[in-house]
Structure formats: C-alpha cells, structure tokens
C-alpha cells in the first residue's frame, strides 16, 4: 500500500506564457517520465507532452488540464497542468479543488500579471498552499527580486526568497541555495547534472544578507528555529520544518527561481515540492452527508474507510471515455463495485490507470489521496462515487451560467453525426459548456463563458472530429426581469364543445432581487384546491422561459398567488397551468419589464502612459471604471463592461497601446441595460410588448 505521506497532488498554475508547460515538461524529464524534451511551440513537431491536444499544440496554450504523475526523491507526485487563459478558469477551479498544493509560476520579466491575480484568488478560495517559481531568468529584463516584491505587494503573499540567482539574462547559470548556502549549477545538455559548489566570492555578502532575511521571516513559524538562531545552531532540518509549517498554514510563500527553458532551477523546485507542500492527510476535505440533510462531514485520508471519490474531469481519448478521479477516502480497485451518488447507479470498475498526458499505465488499485483515471463509466464531471456503504457527495463546485452563445451548423450533412458526438462529449467534459437546439430556428446553439471558449470548441470539432462548422454571430445571453410590483387577476374559461376548462387566479408579481424565481402560495380557504397550486406555478414558470420583451428567459421574479376560483367539473391541472401562463402574459407589461445583460469584470494592465487610452476603451464600451491602481510605472484598471461591447476588444486594446497592455475578463453579474440600449434590443428582436410606463 502507498505511504500517504509520500504522495503530493500538485498543480502548476499561472499566467499564460509564464512557461508552466515548459516547466512541467522539464519536471517529467528530470523524473525520467519522458526521455526527450519537446518545446511548447517545438520545431520537432512533437510539442510538449502535457499539451496533448492538437489545438493546444498549435496555439502554444494549455486548455485541458491533463493529469500526469512522476516520482521524485521517493515521493509520488501527481501533477495537474492547469490552463492559463481566463476563459478556461472553470478548468483551473476544478483542478484546484482536487489539489493539495500548487506551484505558482511567474514570469521573471513580466512579474505578477492580471491572470496570476485571478489564479491566486482562486487558490486562496480553495485554501491551496503554494510555492512560487520565478521563471525565465534567462530573458532580458529579468528581475526576481522585483517579482518577489510584487508577490508581497500585489498578491499580499508573505513571499520569502529561498534562493538567489547566479547571473541573470544570458549570464544566468545557476542559483544559490540559502538553506545549504551552496551554489547550484545545472550541467549537461539538458541541465540534468547538478554541480554543487561554494558560493562565488563576489556573492557571499549578498547571500548572507538574503539568508538572514529568510531566517527572520521563517523563524516566525518555529520557536525551535528562533532558539537555534540565537544560539547559532541552525540546521537545515530546522529551516525546512519551519518553511513547511508556514507554507501549510498559507502564511508563507517560499520563492524559488530559474529558467525552465534553459534547464535551470527545476530540480531544487521538485525538492521543495516534496519538502514543503502537504501530503493528502494534511489537507482537510469535506463532503455532504446525503442521508443526513446534507450535513457537512470531514473525510479521512484513510484507505480502510468507505470509498469517496470525485470525478473531476472527463475525456474521450484513444482508450474511450476516461474519467479522472480523486480518491478522498477509502480505496478503489479493478472490478470493485461503486455507486454514483447523484444517479444512484451502480458501476463495476473496469480498467484503472495512472495517466501520463495521453498515455496510460494500468494499475490494480488506488487509495485515498491518489489521482487516477477510470475507463468506461458513464458519469458527469463533478459526480461523486462511493462504495454504497455511505451516501455522501463532495460539495457542489461553483459553476457559472453561460454568458454567450453561438449557432453552429455542419458544413455538410455527413458531419451531423460527428458534430452531435463531439458536442455530447464536450458537454460532459466541461460543465460551463452547453449545447442545445433552438426551438424556433431548429439551429444547434452552443454556449459558454466567452468568445475564445466557444472558438476553441469549434476548432476542436474540426480537428478531433473532422467536422467543419459554420457559425452564426455570437449572441449575448440576455435576461429579462421586472422593475416593479403589479397585480394580476386572470380567468381562463373555455366552454365551447367538449369538456370545459375553467380556472381563475389573482395575486401579484414583484422584483425578487438576487434570486431567479420564487412562487408564494397565499391562497386561503381553498378557493383554489391545493392540488392545482403546482399547476399554477408550472404555468408561470413556463411563461417565464421566454420573456415577451426580447425573447430571453425572465428571472428575478417573485409571484404571490393570493386568490382564485375553480369549477367542480371544468377545472383541471391543465386549466390552471394555462391560467398561470395567461396571468404572467397579462401582468408582465404592467410590471415594467426590463432587459438585463451579462457584465464582465475586466482588468487591464498597461504602462502608465497608456492609461488615458485604456480608460477610453472602457468608457466607449459603456463600461464603469471601478478603480485604477498605479504602481512601478504600470497602471491596473478595474472595470465592469457589458459583454455585448467586448467583441474584438483584444484588437482594439492592442492597437491603442502598441501591444503593451493586457487584459483578463470574467463574468461578474447581470445588470439592467440603459433605456436606449433596451429600445435598440427591442427593435432588433422585434418586440411587440407595449410596456405600461406609468409610475
């Protein structure tokens, strides 16, 4: 059985182009999982091992988080390579949920960028202890001290340098280890031969000062180390123990550095991963007890307890449908019987394996703390599996609703089947990606979290399923809502031929801020028999599926049913459902319907001299500037901008800042559109509703 203290489940996470895929590639090389190094945009046509999807290879970005594992210093390390582009943050969030620790990769030149902030916020939310690795010290302009300072200032980390660089830019040759006080060089064609020497004489003084600063910061986490410092009896073990304590409590971020591309500094980082990041038993994981009103329970990383495992990622690969599982408690073996706690379906485990990007190594059994892949089991991302002796689910992961949609049509009829297959797979893999058929146009519509998000799936259809699709213009997912209370009194009566229909409902609707839909039954004295109340609610809910202002779903409405009438013969479920639908149709124009639009949180970082230009790009797009932070000649603008105004933003921003600005964007909330925009939308969607505007 695996010694849990020797397992590390880690993520490598950072801003796009910080070099995290290159870093992962080097980790796999030094741990002898691969025997040749490929570059992200390699000339050898192989591409980095972790970027296994065709598209990622072409674009040089990581989209799906491939899981892999390696062995280092007697430890079993599972690595999830997380994507860096903001449109894929659900992937990052999902990965963070199953990780016990992470390496935050920062570019030694660009430092802490907007996406690093988003990722760091997510890590904080999931309480993931982290190490920092300042990469790209071989690039001109690299300055690890400045980046470490940014970690403190911008991300509010208690960042402590554990190393100093020996040379920078093209003179970068190694690092000084401030714990051992030795210089470490990386020789051989691929930096695989480590040479440890004395610190260069001209850096001795600087290294001593840096070590003192490090000891000062680290000793706060260990009284033994403080005492040892006073008595001048500091040992490496005491330092490691204190750093570990600080890291686990997330009060300290040890900072390492190097250049993955130039094969410098990766092995000491691996040592740090095994030394300072937690093993699965040191992280508290909770689930909800479905047999006890969803009361939270703490899981124990104990292989002898009942099984609890989370399916955190699905893929269709060369081995068929593949489910990535994180085992939180108990054990799972080949041929064992497991139950999906959502569907209550029982499954027999077929093949079980450890994934190394797209290659697999079969195993017989996996234990609490492990990350494994399972084959041939039909489930959705986020499902919990147990061994039937307990009925628990891992708490639900936050999944935002899609904010943009696109109609897709296969270029030829032959591709229809493949397109359906592809969409079915994408929907199962990615909870933020949706696909459906528009009832009116009959078109297939896909929806997701941003333009690029959908674009990537269209490309994947082409490459992986050989489906050429034609896409419509992107469509923002508007919502309708009401702005004031209004009363309804509606009768549905049909008594011409056959059995009659009669139902009468009265009450009022009012805005329900922060909620989607609430139905309150205040009918007293049985004026509407209880059995018909759900039918009224259903009627209202049906009518709200498509608002009459511009045809989008209505949300944020509280319906209060107060009175009504029924007929002993002619009333039925159907009659009350129709009355509910009619009542909503009658009352809607009186309740001042309004259009709501998705608003994105935008962060733009640019050199100070472009802040006026950047501000203008926001103002021109009906944006609201939240604030501006000036720092070190750079300026970070935070704003909220309607999604409908953000198409083509990247190009505009590039042209007005000479390509020196960058932005990140994520969904923030739905807000009411201004009057003139609402009028335009009504014209565009052909609204016929006459809004009763009288106050």
């Amino acid at each position: 059985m695996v010694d849990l203290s020797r397992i590390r489940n880690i993520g490598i996470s950072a801003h796009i182009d910080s070099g995290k895929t290159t870093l992962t590639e080097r980790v796999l090389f030094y741990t002898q999982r691969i025997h040749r190094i490929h570059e992200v945009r390699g000339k050898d046509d192989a591409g980095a091992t972790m970027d296994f999807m065709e598209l990622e290879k072409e674009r040089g970005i990581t989209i799906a988080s491939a899981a892999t594992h390696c062995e280092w210093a007697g430890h079993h390390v599972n690595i999830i390579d997380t994507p860096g582009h903001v449109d894929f943050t659900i992937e990052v969030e999902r990965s963070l949920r199953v990780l016990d620790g992470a390496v935050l990769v920062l570019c030694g030149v660009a430092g802490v960028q907007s996406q690093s902030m988003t990722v760091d916020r997510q890590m904080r939310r999931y309480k993931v202890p982290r190490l920092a690795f300042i990469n790209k010290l071989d690039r001109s302009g690299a300055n690890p001290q400045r980046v470490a300072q940014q970690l403190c200032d911008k991300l509010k980390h208690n960042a402590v340098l554990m190393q100093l660089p020996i040379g920078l830019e093209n003179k970068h040759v190694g690092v000084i280890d401030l714990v051992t006080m030795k210089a470490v060089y990386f020789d051989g064609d691929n930096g695989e031969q480590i040479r440890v020497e004395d610190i260069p004489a001209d850096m001795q003084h600087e290294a001593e000062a840096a070590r003192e600063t490090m000891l000062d910061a680290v000793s706060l986490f260990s009284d033994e180390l403080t005492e040892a410092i006073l008595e001048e009896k500091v040992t490496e073990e005491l330092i490691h123990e204190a750093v570990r304590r600080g890291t686990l409590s997330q009060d300290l971020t040890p900072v390492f550095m190097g250049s993955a591309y130039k094969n410098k500094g990766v092995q000491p980082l691996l040592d740090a991963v095994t030394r300072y990041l937690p093993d699965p038993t040191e992280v508290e994981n909770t689930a909800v007890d479905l047999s006890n009103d969803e009361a939270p329970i703490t899981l124990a990383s104990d292989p002898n307890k009942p099984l609890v495992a989370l399916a955190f990622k699905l893929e269709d690969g060369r081995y068929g449908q593949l489910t990535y599982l994180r085992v939180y408690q108990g054990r799972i073996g080949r041929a064992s019987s497991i139950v999906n706690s959502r569907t209550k379906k029982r499954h027999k485990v077929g093949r079980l394996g450890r994934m190394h990007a797209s290659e697999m190594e079969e195993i017989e059994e996996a234990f609490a703390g492990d990350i494994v892949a399972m084959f041939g089991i039909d489930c959705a991302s986020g499902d919990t599996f147990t061994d039937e002796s307990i009925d628990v689910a891992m708490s639900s992961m936050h999944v935002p609703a899609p904010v943009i949609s696109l109609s897709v049509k296969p270029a030829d009829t032959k591709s229809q089947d493949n397109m359906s297959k592809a969409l079915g797979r994408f929907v199962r893999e990615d909870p933020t990606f949706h696909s459906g058929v528009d009832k009116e146009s009959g078109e297939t519509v896909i929806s997701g979290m941003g333009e690029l998000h959908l674009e990537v799936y269209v490309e994947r259809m082409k490459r992986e399923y050989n489906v050429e699709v034609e896409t419509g213009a992107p469509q923002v997912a508007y919502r309708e809502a009401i702005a004031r209370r209004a009363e309804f009194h509606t009768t549905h009566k049909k008594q011409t031929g056959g059995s009659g229909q009669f139902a009468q409902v009265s009450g009022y609707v009012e805005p329900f801020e922060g909620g989607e839909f609430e139905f309150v039954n205040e009918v007293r004295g049985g004026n509407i028999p209880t059995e018909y109340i759900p039918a009224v609610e259903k009627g209202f809910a049906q009518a709200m599926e498509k608002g009459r202002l511009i045809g989008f779903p209505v949300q944020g409405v509280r319906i209060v049913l107060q009175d009504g009438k029924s007929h002993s013969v002619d009333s039925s479920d159907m009659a009350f459902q129709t009355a509910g639908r009619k009542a909503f149709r009658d009352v809607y124009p009186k309740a001042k319907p309004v259009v709501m639009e998705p608003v994105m949180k935008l962060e733009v970082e640019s050199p100070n001299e472009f802040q006026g230009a950047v501000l203008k790009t926001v103002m021109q797009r009906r944006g609201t500037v939240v604030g501006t932070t000036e720092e070190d000649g750079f300026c970070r603008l935070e704003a909220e901008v309607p999604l409908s105004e953000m198409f083509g933003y990247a190009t505009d921003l590039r042209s007005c800042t000479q390509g020196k600005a960058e932005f990140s964007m994520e969904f923030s909330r739905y807000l009411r559109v201004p009057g003139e925009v609402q009028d335009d939308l009504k014209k565009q969607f052909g609204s016929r509703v006459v809004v009763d505007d009288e106050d």
Partner: protein
Amino acid sequence: MKKRFLNARSPLRLLEKGLHGGLGPGNLGVVIAAHGVGKTSFLVGVAVDELLREGRVLHVSCSHPVSHVRAHYDTVFEELAHEKHLENTGLIHGEIDRRRSIRVMPPGTLTPGALHDAVKVERDASGAPSLIVVEGLDAAEFTREDLQDLRSLARELQAELWLESSCADERHVSVPAGLEAQSDLVAVILALEPGDGAVGLRALKDHDSPDVSTLHVSLDPRTLLLVRS
C-alpha cells in the same frame, strides 16, 4: 423615498448650513480625528452625498486597494438606501458608480503633480470631478507649496478637495502643528470627536468666520453617517 427628497433632507445640508454654505468649490477642507475614529467613513459619506446630487467624485487612496475603497462606498450607499427607504436603489447605485473614480497610489507617489496628471486622465475620459477626496495621507505632511498646488488644482476645477489628518488625542482634537502654519490655505477644518453615544463634528476653521461654534451635528457612531440632531 425618491432621490430628490433624499437629497433635500440629507443631514449634509445641516453641515452646509453650519459652515456658511459648506466647503465650497475651489476650496481645501481637512478633517482631523484620532486614528480609527472614522475620517474615511465620514469623507465617503460626503462623497456619496455629492454623487447623489449628480456630482462626479475622484477618490484617491494611498492606503487601501480599490476593492476596499469600493466596499466602503457600497456600504455607505446601502446603509443610506436602507435607512431612507430609497427607491430604485439598483439603478441609482449603478449611476453613482459611473460617476465615481477610485485611484490607488502607493504612499510616496502622491504629489500635487501626480494628482494633476490623474485628474487630467479622468477629465479627458469621463469628465472633471466636482469633489476630490485624498485619503491615507496626512495633510500635515504636505509642504506649503504642495497645499498651494492642491488649492490651485481645486480652483482650476472648481472642485471641493478634502484631505485628512490624524491627531493623538481622541477626545480633544486640535490642528496639528504641521498644518497650523498652513491653515490660511485651508478653508474648512473639521474635528471628529467620539462622545457619548455619537461622534461629534466640530468646526476648527470655517472660512474666514471668527465664530466656529455654529456647527452642531453628530455622526451615527456605527455608520459614521451624519444624523439630524
């Protein structure tokens, strides 16, 4: 309550009455209190009042990140909206957010020149502010030249410019020595002093008026919003 009634009934009007018309465009004002009494909350209250009267506010902070300052404004607005049963809060909140700009400058970088540059960027993009709040930097640390420059900026924009200053004695606030010598450049100096059940607001300087005893307002000790006395 509708917004126009809220404005007419705002306790800030009492402040203006007690101060011979308030701070007034083109003038510098300083609020002094001991650390933690609520200078920032008071100034955010003044700024929200200006925003509700269709004014434009530039809030410069040297001590807090944007999210923190924004949360301050949200809290003050929500408190006010709740207390006064303001109608259409969502819409009004959106409107005032659009007329407010928060700018965070690290300590040591806020100079009159930097503020001038920031105002220019704001003016070009969205319009000139009618009220500027500078928070997180002690007014007593400004040199005479700095304060002269700041007053010129306020005059040029015809904006009210509020600064803050700290003192050690919580209950008996006086003008710090560093500011005393420059007080001729400042039109209004207010003191915040915690008392029994409320925080008192007292004028230490009221334009050129020798009588500073006409101001009698107090602040809700929980929200630091002005209350009618």
